[in-house]
């Protein structure tokens, strides 16, 4: 699916003294089968933008297009099945007595038969390495386990685009790496992923393209190498290291991911 935002604007509390212009004309395309990173400082509009992707928030101006069709003309339920949104701290919305029931809730709303619902629940939990949690109460889980259960609930809808708003906040580094591997696996399976994150190091590892938001506007968009080498002060640690070496060692190139960077640094040491 191709998801397109055209000149999207949004204002919180319009017409009051507390009015905040959160998005000031954002145009952005989520291409099929890509992982798009959305980064930017706190308050730059990242979450507001994410919530426009399935029209959880209705733009005050501009439009959202799904394969060229105005998203407003689609059934809300249809749109939200195709574009899955995982909120910040999604575990606060867990409610059912067991994880299994919780994950089954959304697919059951689709009117699928019970066999299909069960299959989807199993698949989603397996994708998140959370099968052993199926019969547990969501409230007796640790923070990381709850997070995985909550993401499984959205995955069970089999969305074509999965929007993740700070999915790794508060997770331990190993669980974070598992989640990043899941993102890459979903892309392999033909799902587009939008990763909203303040962690540039993780964005560097998994994204095909990166968009920087600043005060509700797109400041830059491109491949991670293009975007990060343009302004290495706002870049992941790998790029901050290599860009400091560039003047003395131009042969280092433009590596971004950890593995590429380590190879480039090793090559320097070998000559």
């Amino acid at each position, binding site marked *: 699916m191709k998801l397109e935002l055209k000149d999207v604007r949004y204002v919180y509390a319009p017409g009051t003294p507390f009015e905040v212009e959160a998005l000031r004309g954002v145009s952005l395309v989520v291409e099929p089968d890509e992982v798009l990173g959305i980064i930017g400082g706190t308050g730059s509009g990242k979450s507001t933008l994410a919530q426009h992707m399935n029209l959880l928030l209705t733009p005050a101006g501009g439009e959202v297009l799904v394969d060229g069709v105005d998203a407003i003309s689609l059934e809300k339920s249809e749109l939200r099945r195709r574009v899955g949104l995982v909120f910040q701290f999604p575990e606060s919305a867990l409610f059912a007595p067991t994880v299994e029931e919780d994950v089954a809730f959304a697919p059951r709303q689709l009117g699928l038969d019970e066999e299909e619902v069960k299959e989807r629940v199993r698949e989603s939990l397996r994708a998140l390495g959370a099968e052993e949690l199926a019969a547990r109460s969501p409230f007796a889980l640790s*923070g990381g386990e709850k997070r995985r259960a909550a993401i499984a609930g959205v995955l069970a809808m089999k969305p074509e685009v999965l929007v993740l708003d700070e999915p790794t906040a508060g*997770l331990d580094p190993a669980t974070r790496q598992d989640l990043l591997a899941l993102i890459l696996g979903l892309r392999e399976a033909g799902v587009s992923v939008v990763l909203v994150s303040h962690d540039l190091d993780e964005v560097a590892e998994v994204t095909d393209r990166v968009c920087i938001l600043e005060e509700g506007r797109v400041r830059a968009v491109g491949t991670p190498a293009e975007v990060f080498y343009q302004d290495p002060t706002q870049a992941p640690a790998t790029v901050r290291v290599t860009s400091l070496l560039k003047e003395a060692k131009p042969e280092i190139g433009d590596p971004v991911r950890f593995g590429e960077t380590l190879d480039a640094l090793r090559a320097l040491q070998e000559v």
Partner: protein
Amino acid sequence: MENAGDGTHPGGSFAVSCERISFSYPGSERPALSDISLHVRPGEYVGVAGPNGGGKSTLVRLLNGLLRPDSGGVRVSGRDPATEPFEVRKHLGVLFQNPENGLVAPFVEDDIAFGLENLGVPREEMRDRVAGAVRAVGLEGYERREPSTLSGGEKQRVALAGLLAVDPEILVLDEPTSMLDAAGRREVLEYLGALPAEKTILHVTHHLEELLDADRILLLNDGDLVADETPERFFSDADLLRENRLVLPVVPRLALELGLAPAKLRTPEELAEAILAKTESGTRAG
């Protein structure tokens, strides 16, 4: 025994002491904490690390009396948080992980003042303390905003300001930077670094680089206290890190892979310099 003190006041000479505490959540087959003992002296800066589900947040909740241990005893400034939670919370303030849950008032400034109101601080003084906390976290101009219109990172700053306004002797920070970008994280760490030395700090985090300045790091995994080490020893112990699903941050990880000292090279600048020095000496030698 180290904690015997004068024998009249268990844990009295410690800011925080836990004696053989165990805790299980109802319906859970394995304990969240089993038989943990730890002691923190006034003025110590102690990091708490470990995987999700290791017991870190449970420990925090036992310290401020939100939970009570199944067995064993907790003392905070000599008091038992399970029986005197309100007294304990005057001495020990917690910044919780998810800022959404903590914000209650209609405006940012009321939220920051909330803890002070509960302590019965006079109005005049309250105004000064709130203003000081707002400045400390860089939220000037946000006083009359509604918390619901703030971003996750801004909410986290509001919660931190509320804690700084109360100014407890013991600060417990549960993932205080989980929603902040790199710049915001550096700022929060600077506020922590600028706190007076007599403050006791327990800092729970997955970002191990934030703990480089800690006096020691406690590692909780699967309900057990598996290590109590200085940051230098902790960072260089590859087996300990691997066994406990801990991953070093990018700069020390690159350093370790390149055969350079991981705990000494904290910033990209320091690492780049070390690499240049090494390649240049290599060129001269060759």
